[in-house]
């Protein structure tokens, strides 16, 4: 690893990768990228490259995991061995197990679980390349994959992190800022319902800084939300062109 740079933000308030404090990394969202999945999405969020696929509602396997009164949402967040600097063992790590759980819990409030008793929806997220903020990008992509599969949703779920780097609250930390920064606050949000469905934090923040970080993350979410909707529409625009 490179030596720690002295400053992560220069005097003009520009970050190491050239962004301003409240600027998102470039994003690319695409829907319907996998033909075998019921719904799928691909996200490039900075250097993060992540695929998400949704299957179902379908019969649960194993059957005894199904619930008589509602659908079960299962998520698997997984990183490819080549997605990080040092090869990561493909066996699920404790971090991946925790992230799978919080991603599932961030998506559940968007679904009408009680409308599909005894069934299951599986969401698989594969991180092909990681560059900080993969849980947020995964949620953004997973929500798109579910929407693409046609399962009714209360709202899309969109996620973005804010954090503290060199005493400044900044939006959308990338790898170096995540590792060297003072705090990281990932937030998942359903903009239409004004509902926060994921909130974690590590590092140290005063209550005021925390409030600022959550607000900044929510503003970032709202911007990505527009791109999510655009990505969904784009898929169907293409279909229309073919029909003509």
């Amino acid at each position, binding site marked *: *690893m490179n030596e720690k740079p002295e400053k992560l933000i220069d005097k003009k308030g520009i970050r190491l990768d050239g962004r301003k404090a409240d600027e998102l990394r470039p994003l690319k969202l695409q829907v319907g990228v996998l033909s075998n999945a019921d719904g799928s999405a691909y996200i490039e969020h900075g250097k993060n490259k992540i695929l998400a696929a949704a299957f179902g509602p379908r019969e649960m396997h194993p059957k005894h995991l199904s619930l008589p009164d509602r659908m079960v949402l299962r998520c698997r967040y997984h990183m490819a061995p080549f997605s990080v600097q040092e090869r990561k063992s493909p066996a699920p790590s*404790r*971090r991946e*197990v*925790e992230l*799978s*759980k*919080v991603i*599932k*819990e961030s998506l*559940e*409030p968007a679904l009408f679980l009680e409308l599909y008793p005894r069934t299951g929806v599986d969401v698989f997220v594969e991180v092909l390349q990681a560059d900080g903020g993969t849980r947020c990008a995964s949620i953004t992509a997973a929500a798109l994959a579910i929407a693409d599969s046609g399962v009714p949703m209360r709202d899309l779920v969109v996620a973005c992190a804010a954090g503290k780097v060199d005493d400044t609250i900044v939006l959308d930390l990338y790898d170096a800022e995540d590792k060297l920064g003072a705090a990281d*606050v990932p937030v998942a949000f*359903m903009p239409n*319902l*004004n*509902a*926060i*469905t*994921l*909130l*974690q*934090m*590590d*590092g*140290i*923040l*005063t*209550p005021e800084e*925390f*409030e600022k970080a*959550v*607000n900044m993350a*929510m503003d970032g979410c709202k911007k990505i939300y527009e791109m999510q909707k655009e990505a969904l529409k784009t898929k169907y625009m293409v279909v229309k062109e073919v029909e003509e």
Partner: protein
Amino acid sequence: MSSLVTRVRLKQIEQLIEKGKRLDERGLRDYREIKIEQGLIERAEGSARVLLGKTEVLVGVKVATGEPFPDTPNEGVQTVNAELVPLASPNFEPGPPDENSIELARVVDRGIRESKAIDTEKLCIEPGKKVFIVFVDVYVLNHDGNLIDASALAAMAALLNTKMPNYEIKDGELKIKQGYTPLPMKSHPITVTIGKVNNYLIVDPWLEEEQVMDSRISFAFNDDGNICAIQKGGSGYFTLQQILEASKIAREKAAELRKKLDW
């Protein structure tokens, strides 16, 4: 992690909370009675048992030597593991840790790690080669709700109770000497979990309340009242106002606990 509670009772819990009351006659912002006992496992370098109402958690700390992580060659290593042993609840099964015990361990770990509670730089024996590793093992003995707060409390109590063997380095070899010194500690994080039941926020949800609450949020606070870790859990959501409200309540409760514990 759900257990069998009749729907009538769940409804009753909900309705009581809406009136600002709770089934166990606590206020919405009261903790259950907390009892802490330290040093009850002589074989462990540190240990503590916490009773939070009927929730019972035992934490044992073992100190061993090993290699540091390559990116922190001058620092000792902290690891937290949690076991939801089958005797603690009819819903716990033997086997490898499931997502609930992994989450529990990682939330407890985050509170201690991010507040830099353990002075890991003082646990270095030989930079890059040999350091002390502090194993914190959370053992849930009885599950009656709010395992996060009980475990975080027990982990800190056990760490504060931990004694390190005295040592000296002779010809590059580690020699254990007579006597013990306390584990070097820098701060005392306290974790407070708030549950949300129909838009009402409750402190320290117990088992049956956990069945009705749609989500929870845990805050860990440093000695100076700054936030050092957060985890939202459960399949519901919070509004921003609820989060800020919850963080305020949690901060007050953490300060209250800190005063009581004299940490």
